[in-house]
Every structure is written in C-alpha cells, then in structure tokens.
C-alpha cells in the first residue's frame, strides 16, 4: 500500500504541470477568440490582438507541457520501479 501511494504521488507533479499548461493554452485561445470577435475602426475590421502575447503564451504552454511530460515520465519510471514486485 505504501508503494502504491508513493507511485500515485510520483505522478501528481507532472500531471499538475500538464494541467496548468493545458489551462494556460485554453484560456489564451478563449481570449484570442474574444479579441477576434470584436472590431475596430471605420470601416470596422477585426482585431488581431498583440501577436507577441500569442507567441509567448504558445511558447510558455509548450515549455510547461514539455517540463510536465518529462516530470511525468520520471514519475512513471519511479512508480513502475516501486510497483514492479
């Protein structure tokens, strides 16, 4: 039981990081969609929002997801060692 609990705990940090990366990505997509729905100027044209921010959110989500996947892989490896016998 102790090994099983350890195994589950090892998966949490990586899973949490992947969840944060996913939430960051979905939140940014929602706000980008809201930007694109609004218009500016006369005649009105669709807004595009700050491009640098889009790139930054995509990059940060990718880095967080990569770090989360690596941590999850480490957690899976350690949990597999503990639960092997």
């Amino acid at each position: 039981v102790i090994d099983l609990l350890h195994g589950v705990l090892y998966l949490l940090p990586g899973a949490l990081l992947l969840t944060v990366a996913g939430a960051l990505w979905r939140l940014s997509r929602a706000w980008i969609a809201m930007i694109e729905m609004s218009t500016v100027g006369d005649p009105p044209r669709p807004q595009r929002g700050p491009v640098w921010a889009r790139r930054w959110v995509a990059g940060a989500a990718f880095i967080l997801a990569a770090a989360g996947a690596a941590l999850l892989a480490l957690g899976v490896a350690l949990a597999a060692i503990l639960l092997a016998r």
Partner: protein
Amino acid sequence: MPPARGWRQAANPDRMPGQYWAYGFWAVVGVPLFVAVLSSAVADDVRWIAALAALPAAANHGDRGAGALFAGRLDGPTTTTAAGRLAIAWVGTVTVENHAGKSKNTIEKCRLGRIDHLILAGDDGRRLAIADPGLAALAIPESMAVIGHGTPIYELGEAFQISGIPPPIAERCGLPSEDFAKGTWFYQETWAAPGTHVELAGCRMAGSETLAACPTGPARGHLVAHGVRALVRRMADRTLGMGALVVVVSIFFAAVGGIGALLALRRAAGGGAR
C-alpha cells in the same frame, strides 16, 4: 515627459515589452539545461534505484553471484554505544556545521562505533557472518551518490541526534574544548538493538558462510533495518524531488512571461485587467 514603456503601455499593444526578451532567453536556456540535467544525473539515479529494487530475495532465488537480499536478525556480541545504549552494532558521528553567509557546510570531525563480528541469523535458519566493511567506508548520511559509487549504507534502525558534544565523546574523539567555540556541533548516533531485523544487499562469498559487498552492481553490502524497499522509496523520493526542483527553476521564466502575455491578451479582449 516620455510615456512609460513596458507591457502596461496601451498605445502600442503589438510591441513586445523589452524585458520579455530576457525571460525568453532564460526559458530557451533553461529548458535544454533541464533536459541535460534530467537525462544525465536523474536517469543514472533511476537506473541504480531500479537495480537495487530488482535484487532478488536470497531465500527464494539463492545468490547467483549478482547479489541478493539476505533477511534475518542481527546477532553478535553486544556492546554499549557512546551514549550508553545496548547494541549489536552502532555508529556515532561528530559533525560541525559552519555558516558562511547564506550557505552552510557540514564537516564530519570524528566517527566512533562498532560494526564487526556481526552475524545474520537468517529467516531460513542459516547463520551467516557479515564481513566488516570498516567504519570509515560507510556512507553517513545515505545519499543517491554513494549508491552509484558502491559505498555501503548502514541504516541500523534506531537513531538520535543532539546538539553539543558530551565531554566523554569529545574526549574519545580527541577534540580539544576550544574547537567547540566555532560552528554548531552535533552528535548523531545510529544503533541496532539486539535482535533487530535487517536486510543485507550483498553476495555470499564463495566457499564460506560470509556475506560481503558484491564486486559490481547495486548490492554493495548495504545493511538496512527497515528493509531495502524503504531505502529504495527514500532514494526515489529524493530523485523525484531533485527532478521537480530542476523543473521549477527552468519553468520559472516561461511561467512569468506566459502569465504576463495572458494578461495582455485579456486586456486586448476587453477583460479589464487594469
């Protein structure tokens, strides 16, 4: 007065604030660094932990030369530790902790104890002598690095630590009293009471009834009172902790920039961050 520059500037929302280049640089540097550290140090640790966890029980499979776990009760002549406990085996260390600014270093000044003439009264009824690795050869405290180096770990079951060195122990160690004026001094003692159940990860020496460290592999003569599984768990905990620390450092810059960019998107979407 010129307008303030930065990500709060509303006049030119498409212009990336200057400090983001710095965050981007560290994120780009941090991630490869994280991958390098994780793939070298941590992956090596995981291999050693897996090898230690995979050692077969000698009672079930016998020792085929690659090492096994020998379980039983510790027997041998009883002795009294420096702190006055009755023990079969014991190790006491005197350490001093010196602070230099925010960093501190711990130095072992003296090691006392007795780990010779130990017998493992096996759960299967056999009595096997345990070869003395020498007090100086033991790894105290245990760490992941010593498992990789093949240094034996002795975790004898009972342990305590006191700050300040009792005069009889200072005398046994030959430490003059003026030495204690600098730094914080500790005495740690670990001991195995008579009849303590232990596991030994090692090899049975050919043609004899003696257990010793294997010449290669993970079974380097570790003697563990709470079982090798508990040792494996502690080592796995430390490895994940180290991996998590590296991740936290490498994602810090990505997260700071990501949150700032998200707020900028929110403002542009009319969410009203200001």
